[in-house]
Every structure is written in structure tokens, then in C-alpha cells.
């Protein structure tokens, strides 16, 4: 089942906040420079429905979490850098296990794409061809 456009916007906001562009001189790559939509569609397509729903729920939850964590009616994508830091910090340190799991699932999903990209891999491990391999 394809992502709704609103889900896609939420996902973009979350992933961009987690893996932003220009955060490091050594590793300036931002995840939105990669084929996020294609990757997520492929990933969700490889899961059973429970797993696919879990991934979608994780992005929706994290995207909308500022309503609770910051008491601010905005999605993560619309927060300032400082607010994103606070919002993620609150989720990461939540006393609720399920909350922590959802945010970790979103992070794990982004890491699968980001860390396989050749631009990231060159810095992280001094070379490699994760992206080329996936494209092959």
C-alpha cells in the first residue's frame, strides 16, 4: 500500500530532522539528497503488513510528537533546530517503552538509507559501494 501524501511529508520532515544536511564538515550529506521515497516504498513493500504499519506509525508518531513533547501544534519538520533537538530528546528519554521503540524504528529506517549511501560510507568507513550495490 502506497504512502499517503501527508504521510510522505511527515516522513520527510522526520528524516530530515534526524539526518540533516550540513551538520558536519566531514559528513555534509543530508538524507533528503537521497531517494527517500523510493527507499521507503521498497522497504515497506518488503515487510508483512504488521511491519509496514509499524514503520508508517513510527513516522506519523514522531512527526506529530511536538504536540505532546513541546505542546506546540506543529510537525517535526516545521520546528527550529533547537526545538527539534528538544523534541527528539524528549522522545528518546521517554519513560514509555513504546514511545522509545517508535522513535528508534524511525531512526533505524533512516539509517538503513543514509549509511548505505556512498557519500556517507566514504566518510564512515573510508569507501564502499552501498548505494551502487543497491542500485545494481
Amino acid at each position: 500500500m502506497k504512502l499517503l501524501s501527508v504521510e510522505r511529508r511527515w516522513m520527510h520532515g522526520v528524516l530530515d530532522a534526524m539526518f540533516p544536511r550540513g551538520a558536519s564538515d566531514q559528513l555534509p550529506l543530508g538524507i533528503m539528497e537521497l531517494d527517500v521515497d523510493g527507499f521507503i516504498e521498497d522497504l515497506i513493500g518488503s515487510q508483512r503488513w504488521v511491519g509496514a504499519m509499524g514503520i508508517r506509525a513510527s513516522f506519523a508518531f514522531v512527526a506529530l510528537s511536538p504536540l505532546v513533547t513541546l505542546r506546540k501544534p506543529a510537525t517535526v519538520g516545521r520546528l527550529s533546530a533547537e526545538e527539534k533537538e528538544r523534541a527528539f530528546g524528549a522522545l528518546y528519554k521517554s519513560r514509555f517503552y513504546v514511545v522509545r521503540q517508535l522513535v528508534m524504528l524511525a531512526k533505524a529506517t533512516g539509517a538503513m538509507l543514509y549509511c548505505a549511501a556512498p557519500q556517507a560510507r566514504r566518510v564512515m568507513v573510508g569507501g564502499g559501494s552501498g548505494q551502487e550495490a543497491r542500485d545494481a
Partner: protein
Amino acid sequence: MLDLDTLHRMPTAAQTEPPGAFPDDPESLPPGSVVEGSTVHGTEAQAFDFVVVGSGAAGGVAAHELAEAGFRVALVEEGPWVRTRQFQEAVQPAFKAMYRNGGGFVIQGRTFIPLLQGVCVGGGTTVNSAIAWRLPDDVYADWAVRFGVGSVLNERNLEPCFDDLERLLEVHPVEEHILGRNNTLMRDGMLKLGIRPHVIDRYARGCRGSARCAQGCPNGAKLSTALTFVPWALAKGATLFTEAKVQRVTHAAGKATGVVASTSGKGTLRLSARRGVVVAASTVQTPTLLRRSGLRSKAIGEHFMAHPGVGLGALSDDVVDLTKGVTQAMETIQFRRTHRFKLESLALSPELAAVRIPGFGASLIRRLADFRRLAVWGVQVRAYATGKVDMLAGADRVRYSLGPEDVRIAKKGLRTLAEIAFASGAREVMTGIHGLPETISSPDQLALIDAAPDDPRYYMFIATHLFGAARMGPDSRSSAVGLDFATHEIDKLFVVDSSVFPSNIGVNPQHTIMAVAMHAARTIAARC
């Protein structure tokens, strides 16, 4: 049931020389020996002596033994045959092609524990680290005393199988020049603390230390069953059906008669088995297949056990580079009997390691930029917890919750790993324990690990080694499988994988799974 004297007269060592690893070229297989499920659209029926379900550590070995004994064997594998040339460096394509639920299978309980299961020809042996450990002496004794299986799962039966496997699969310690820094750093730290390191024995030939075991060895160096026992069985006349999920075992008049499988081509395979059906579908899929086949034993699905693991990251001033060196080459079993844990190096790929790196946004990216200095090691817990395997809405389900005693074992292991890390020169360690600082930068802070809650929800466990759920025993009220490897309920329906293990074992189980399957297949061949 076969009597013991007959069993002991059976060949206990393979009579052939090691045939060598398969070159992984489909053209070198006998014509027609592989039937891809995607090509089966209608209903196809074939007759065999034995049908073996699953091509991993247990099924691959069992199929080969039966084929070598001269039987006509069908080997049915749910997943595809992913060839060496198709293995990729990125994790996601590997998960999609070779892991159950695309790597998204999760054990449910007080926590969600990811469970990585290979679903491809070779099963787990294609995607694990090829670690060989014989069954420890204390486990033999425990199984005999507590579970009454000592007449079957004993040294006299299994040790000759270990000998054969080690010769056939060229088991040897990892060579020094391919260890890589993640492994040598762990060894350095252990030696400084007086802990005995052990270089891991593996099934490998020509390993180059590419740290890609989990994605499938790109050099064909890991001697998985996809490169050994499966093609050897095909060379001896067996037929492999890939992408065919066995839906049920058929039986009549109390005897197994074959299997019905659905293919990825939306067809149906009806494979009859004149002499028996051998199930080796894994600790999760074997019990659910038995249930789908109409077996009613209360022991089916019960007594599930595992070796849950937790990892620790250590940042050092040296370049470690997890992508260079053998995935897992250093361990210690010094604490196995006294503390119920085993420590291992574990070179995770960047995609998987990144999840364990703290932070989000800029702080995460800065840490990722320092990834080359990261070492990753793990604690393998011989947990006390038991769980249950069943089905929900047509899907396999594992319910399993770790108890406080298991968490205390994990904590002790994590603390020991942190001590090793600091002894090796790490400047900070990442425990992954919720509520602790993101990093610990001094041995003085290690007491924080001791003080962490004994609640599994505070830790990031993962499960790989699975046991039980169709365990062996003399009593049909408490076990699913008898001492002849046949189920108590249906004659000629055999189970030969780690489902029959009465408990977990505290070391990596592939070697024992293979040895048990080898012994079982020889027993079955002699009986049937």
C-alpha cells in the same frame, strides 16, 4: 524404535573425502535438480523417498546424508537461492532478499526483540558468522539428567558427527592477518584484564575479512550449506524446490505421506514421501508447521528458548573500521558456566551500528562522521526465559519475555565488555541502556551499569539463536518428538532441527544443529 545396538553399528564418519565448496555456478548442478517456485504455476506432483523441509544447517545436512545413503530426496526451501554474485554490501537488499519478513520479524513480549532469520537456500548459514562450537560437556549432562535424552544426544553419537563436519567444512581459527582491528582491540582489552580470549573457529575457506557475513559472503568463503551440503545432495540425486513454502505435512493412518507446498509462482507442489518427511524449518517455523499439519501435542510450541544479545559500542582514538576484518573472530567463554554469558566481537555494518549510536540530528551526524573509530562487541546471554511459538492471523508468532535474572546476566556482560573497552584504550563507551548517560567516558562510571534497572525494556536486545518449541523427550506429555526423532503423534514425521533441543546451550548453535541433524539423518536412513 531403533535399538541402540543397531544405531552404534551405523557409519559414524563420512566415508568420502571433503568434496569441496560448490563453485556456485548453477550450470555445474545436475540438470533439473533445482525447481524454482516461481516457475511452478499449477499443481505439480512428484514422488520421493524423503521430503526434507528447510535447507539450512539442519535440513541441508539431513538431505545430504539421506541422498548419500541412496534415497531419492526432495529438499524444499521457502526462500530463493541467492547466489554469491548477487550478494550486496548494503543491508536492506540483503534483508529483503534473504531474511524473514524483510528483517522485520519481531519477538513479542514485555519487549519487542528483533529476530533475524535467514529465509533462503542455506537458511541461517548463509547470513550468520559461521561460528563452530561443539556442544559443551555440561549441556550433554544436563540434557541427560533433566530431559532424558542422554541415550540419543550424547557424546558417542554427536562427537563423530562434529569430527565429520569439521573435516568437511574446514573448521579452523580465523587467521591473524584477517582479524581486523575490531577483533584485535577486544583481544588486547581482554588480555590486559586477564580474561582469556579465544580466536573463533569458523567454517570458511579463503576468507578475506570483508565483514559482510550478514549480507552473504561476497567471496564465497563462508561454507554455508548453500555452498556445501545442498549442492552435494543435488549431486547425489536430490531435487531442490526453492520459493516453496510447505503449508502442511500430509499423513494417513498415523504415518506421514508427504507435503503440500505453495510456490511463489502461485502454484502448488504435492510431494509424496514413501519413507518419511524430515522437518528442519527452524525453531519458529517447525512447530507452526506441525500445528498446521494437525498435530495436537501440547508440547508443540512450548519451551522456546533463545540466546538474546545486547551490544556495546566503544569509541577509541585508533581507527577501527568495522568493515575491515572478520565479522566475528574474537570471543571468550570464560563466563559461560559461571555467569551464563559469552562475549563476542561483532562488526556490524554502518546501517545497523548507526541505530546504536546515540543522538539525532547534528549530534548523530557528528558521531557518524567518527564511525571509523567505533568498535562493537556483544553479550550473548544464556537466558532462563522460556516462550511460546504459535500463529496469529496466519503468521508465525513468538511470545517471549526476559526476566530480571536474564537482564542481570546481560548487565554483567555489558559491564565486562565496558571494562574490556576501557582496558583496550577506548575513550568512551555506549551501553545503549535507557536512562544512563549516552556515553560513559571513565571506568569510574561503570557502577551505573550495575545500578541500571533489571527491566528488559531498558535494553536493546536482539535474538538470533533459537531452541526448543518441539523438543525431544521420552514422554509424549512433555515433549513433541521422541528419541527416534519422530513426532510422538505421527510416524515417519521427523524433526531434526534445534526445535528438538531441550534447552539453550550457551554457545553458538550451528555446529550442534548440524551434528544433531547428521546423526538424526543417519538414524532415519538406517531405520527407514
